[in-house]
């Protein structure tokens, strides 16, 4: 019982009451209870801190998820927007078919491929069925093939003579008739209205009631010999009704007219076919004017539909095949050929415009689809000889994606890891863009990509340089960043594009500046350090400290085991050790950092640092100072010269002349010499 640990609390059936009871039972005296309480308290604190840690750890993940979700949300919003647009298109389509153009209706209903018309038809049927379910004793609404509901609503019927309310009505206006139903007051369920009567649209007339005593917002329906007056709840509702009545009337009239025309046109061909048999193709196919196949005659409408449905590839295919077949011998002299070709050309323009818009980053372009989403438009545009525009837009998209990806990298922790990540992301998206570009565009466009890529690199570098080369930055971290970038760039070379030169040219001036700054810093520090030096050995206090110091020096290439005296003392002054560290670091890092064309800057820096140190020593007569001076000349100088040669392959001329000036013997092989010198010195 006394041991309180996590497991006990973590059990799902943990019952705090019972736990406390048992605890109270087993514990003897207040003292023990107090201890237990404290234990629990510490446990609670630990848990709380662990929880905090966990929260922090998952925090970034949480934020990322949240942004992802918001992105998704935006995406969904866009989608729903698109869908609603499509819906309006559909409704206008169905509306167009309502408007009494019977030719299109029959064609659409015959054409099984026209799914949209079918859908609209089904919707219409469902609507009518729902209405007939609602109305008791309803007339058969489906008996008329294209009956459509135009308007419905609750109205109050008014007695025309007495101006008093008669009954509540629910009125349906169809395109061919008006159906009046009254409310069933005491019934719930599907049927809510009682059918009263219906009037054919041709027999009724709607009248706006301006003035009817105290009855406001009313309209009349004249159906000889009846006159029915209805009151609406508001003026807008009334206006709606009247407008819908007018629409119904107009549709009706148009339908009648078209029927008449149809009749006339049906009569005409018959008579004409008797007069000129050449027109009846089936009987006498005339070689002069072949009949266009239906798909060719309707090609523009079909193209419209395909464009609206965003089947761009299909649109293109249809265009091409239509143009091809219109250019065959069969249709070469067809009277409609020029017209159709012209219209196809118009559609082509529309398509191109849409595709260009599709590719336009500034116009609603979503990065989520990736570069692949732009594949189809680009391919089609290429076929239309719009390669240059497509290429330009595509690269703009690439720039956008690169920007988005780079922006997505979080600046957290050290600058090195950030730069590394950015480099990875950048070159990854660059390689994505490159592979996509190669598959999409012909070879002669690759130069555009190269120009684009180097420009992107320059942009990226200008951003990164600002962050890497901050004033007072450590050379080590600069080196780390730069080398990671160079590594990435080298990897990217495998894709066949070498951007190293561009990168180095971007890095050149900041690196030079950083080196110079570092040199100045070292020079400044050295003066104070040397003048402040007490010229005594350094006390490292502990053995561990000594070991650490030795290890550090060994990393720089100096083996100083011989300089340890009395176990914890280093037989060198502090400024000497500091100088050795600094100058060797400059050379070591500098050699990795600079490219060939910057060697002179590095040489100059090293030379300046060394020279000023040596000059400082000349005036100092203290024996210990001279000893340290000797160490610098005999140990540090040869080490640096050797390392330099090993790294670059030739001597550092400037340093060599300096060494000669101060009488250092630098005869090869140096390695043994150095050990000899150090041992000599010590002995």
């Amino acid at each position, binding site marked *: 019982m006394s041991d309180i640990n996590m497991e006990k609390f973590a059990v799902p059936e943990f019952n705090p009451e019972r736990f406390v009871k048992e605890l109270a039972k087993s514990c003897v005296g207040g003292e023990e209870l107090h201890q237990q309480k404290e234990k629990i308290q510490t446990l609670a604190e630990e848990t709380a801190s662990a929880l905090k840690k966990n929260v922090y750890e998952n925090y970034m993940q949480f934020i990322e998820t949240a942004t992802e979700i918001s992105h998704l949300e935006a995406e969904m919003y866009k989608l729903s927007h698109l869908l609603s647009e499509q819906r309006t298109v559909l409704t206008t389509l169905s509306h167009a078919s309502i408007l009494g153009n019977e030719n299109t209706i029959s064609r659409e209903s015959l054409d099984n491929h026209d799914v949209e018309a079918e859908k609209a038809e089904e919707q219409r049927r469902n609507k009518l069925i729902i209405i007939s379910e609602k109305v008791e004793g309803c007339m058969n609404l489906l008996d008329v093939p294209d009956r459509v509901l135009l308007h419905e609503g609750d109205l109050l019927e008014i007695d025309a003579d007495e101006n008093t309310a008669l009954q509540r009505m629910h009125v349906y206006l169809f395109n061919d008739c008006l159906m009046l139903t009254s409310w069933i007051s005491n019934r719930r369920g599907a049927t809510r209205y009682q059918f009263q009567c219906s009037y054919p649209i041709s027999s009724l*007339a709607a009248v706006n*009631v301006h003035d*009817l*005593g105290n009855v406001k917002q009313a309209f009349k329906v004249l159906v*000889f*010999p009846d006159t029915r007056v209805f009151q609406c709840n508001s003026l807008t509702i009334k206006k709606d009704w009247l407008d819908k009545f007018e629409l119904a009337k107009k549709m009706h*009239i148009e339908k009648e007219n078209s029927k008449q025309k149809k009749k006339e046109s049906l009569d005409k061909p018959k008579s004409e076919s008797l007069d000129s048999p050449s027109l009846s193709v089936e009987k006498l196919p005339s070689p002069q004017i072949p009949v266009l196949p239906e798909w060719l005659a309707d090609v523009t409408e079909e193209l419209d539909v395909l464009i609206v449905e965003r089947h761009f590839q299909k649109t293109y295919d249809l265009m091409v095949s239509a143009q091809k077949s219109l250019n065959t011998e069969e249709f070469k002299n067809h009277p409609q050929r020029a017209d159709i070709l012209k219209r196809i050309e118009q559609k082509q323009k529309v398509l191109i415009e849409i595709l260009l818009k599709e590719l336009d980053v500034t116009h609603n372009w979503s990065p989520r689809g990736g570069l692949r989403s732009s594949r189809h438009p680009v391919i089609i545009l290429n076929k239309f000889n719009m390669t240059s525009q497509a290429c330009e837009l595509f690269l703009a998209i690439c720039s956008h994606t690169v920007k988005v990806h780079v922006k997505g990298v979080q600046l957290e922790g050290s600058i090195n890891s950030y730069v590394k990540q950015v480099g990875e992301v950048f070159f990854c998206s660059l390689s994505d863009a490159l592979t996509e570009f190669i598959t999409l565009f012909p070879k002669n466009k690759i130069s555009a990509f190269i120009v684009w890529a180097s420009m992107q690199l320059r942009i990226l570098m200008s951003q990164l340089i600002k962050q890497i080369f901050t004033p007072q930055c450590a050379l080590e971290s600069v080196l780390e960043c730069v080398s990671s970038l160079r590594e990435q760039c080298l990897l990217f070379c495998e894709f066949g594009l070498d951007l190293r030169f561009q990168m180095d040219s971007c890095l050149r001036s900041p690196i030079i500046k950083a080196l110079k700054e570092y040199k100045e810093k070292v020079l400044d520090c050295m003066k104070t350090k040397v003048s402040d030096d007490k010229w005594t050995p350094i006390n490292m206090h502990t053995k561990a400290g000594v070991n650490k110091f030795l290890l550090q020096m060994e990393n720089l290439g100096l083996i100083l085991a011989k300089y340890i005296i009395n176990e914890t003392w280093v037989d060198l002054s502090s400024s000497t050790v500091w100088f050795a560290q600094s100058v060797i670091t400059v050379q070591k890092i500098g050699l990795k950092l600079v490219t060939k064309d910057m060697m002179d800057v590095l040489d100059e820096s090293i030379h300046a640092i060394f020279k000023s140190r040596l000059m400082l020593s000349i005036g100092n007569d203290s024996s210990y100072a001279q000893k340290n001076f000797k160490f610098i000349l005999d140990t540090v100088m040869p080490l640096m010269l050797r390392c330099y040669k090993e790294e670059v392959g030739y001597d550092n001329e400037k340093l060599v002349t300096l060494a000669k000036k101060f009488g250092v013997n630098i005869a090869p092989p140096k390695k043994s010499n150095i050990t000899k010198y150090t041992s000599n010195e010590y002995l």
Partner: protein
Amino acid sequence: MFSALTYQLSTTFLEEQKKCEGLVAAANMSKKPATQPTLHKVIMVGSGGVGKSALTLQFMYDEFVEDYEPTKADSYRKKVVLDGEEVQIDILDTAGQEDYAAIRDNYFRSGEGFLCVFSITEPESFDATQEFREQILRVKNDENIPFLLVGNKSDLADKRRVPLDACRERAQHWQVPYVETSAKTRDNVDKAFLTLIRQMSWLKQGLAAAEEPPDQPSRRCAVRCCTIC
């Protein structure tokens, strides 16, 4: 005993008398709404822009509306006192535009009297009255339907393009009264409506032809007078 009987009888008699009185009163009560003023349904017809709505609004509300907005179909109702009797007039103001020609039948069917309006500045509208007349006669199938030919915009005398004689001639030919009105100045507006309502009311009371012939000439005279002025 006897007296008691007579008392009873008398009380029952009184009660019955009271009941009877009540019945009479009830009958009177129920009669009151029945004597609601008779409703006359007038329809304004004529080409677009001749001033049908302007006439209607002037008659209804004593106001002249300058802005022109094509009417679709508007209805108005007003109580007027005609020869000391209150009547109700229901005016249906119809669309003059040609687009509505096909729907007109349905409106005309409900009319009991027609004000056929044209503009004296617009011969085309005068020509169109012929068509309206024919349509009305076809729909109503009644030669004696109350009908009034109205030449509107009499205030624009200087722009007159339909000669007065032609108007009168046509009215004579149709055997209908002719009135010249101005919706702007309210000239003859009431007269035009009241003349038509009077016709309708006579027709309804069955007095039009037979029982009150002496009134007829005087009416004609009145109409003539107003046409001259």
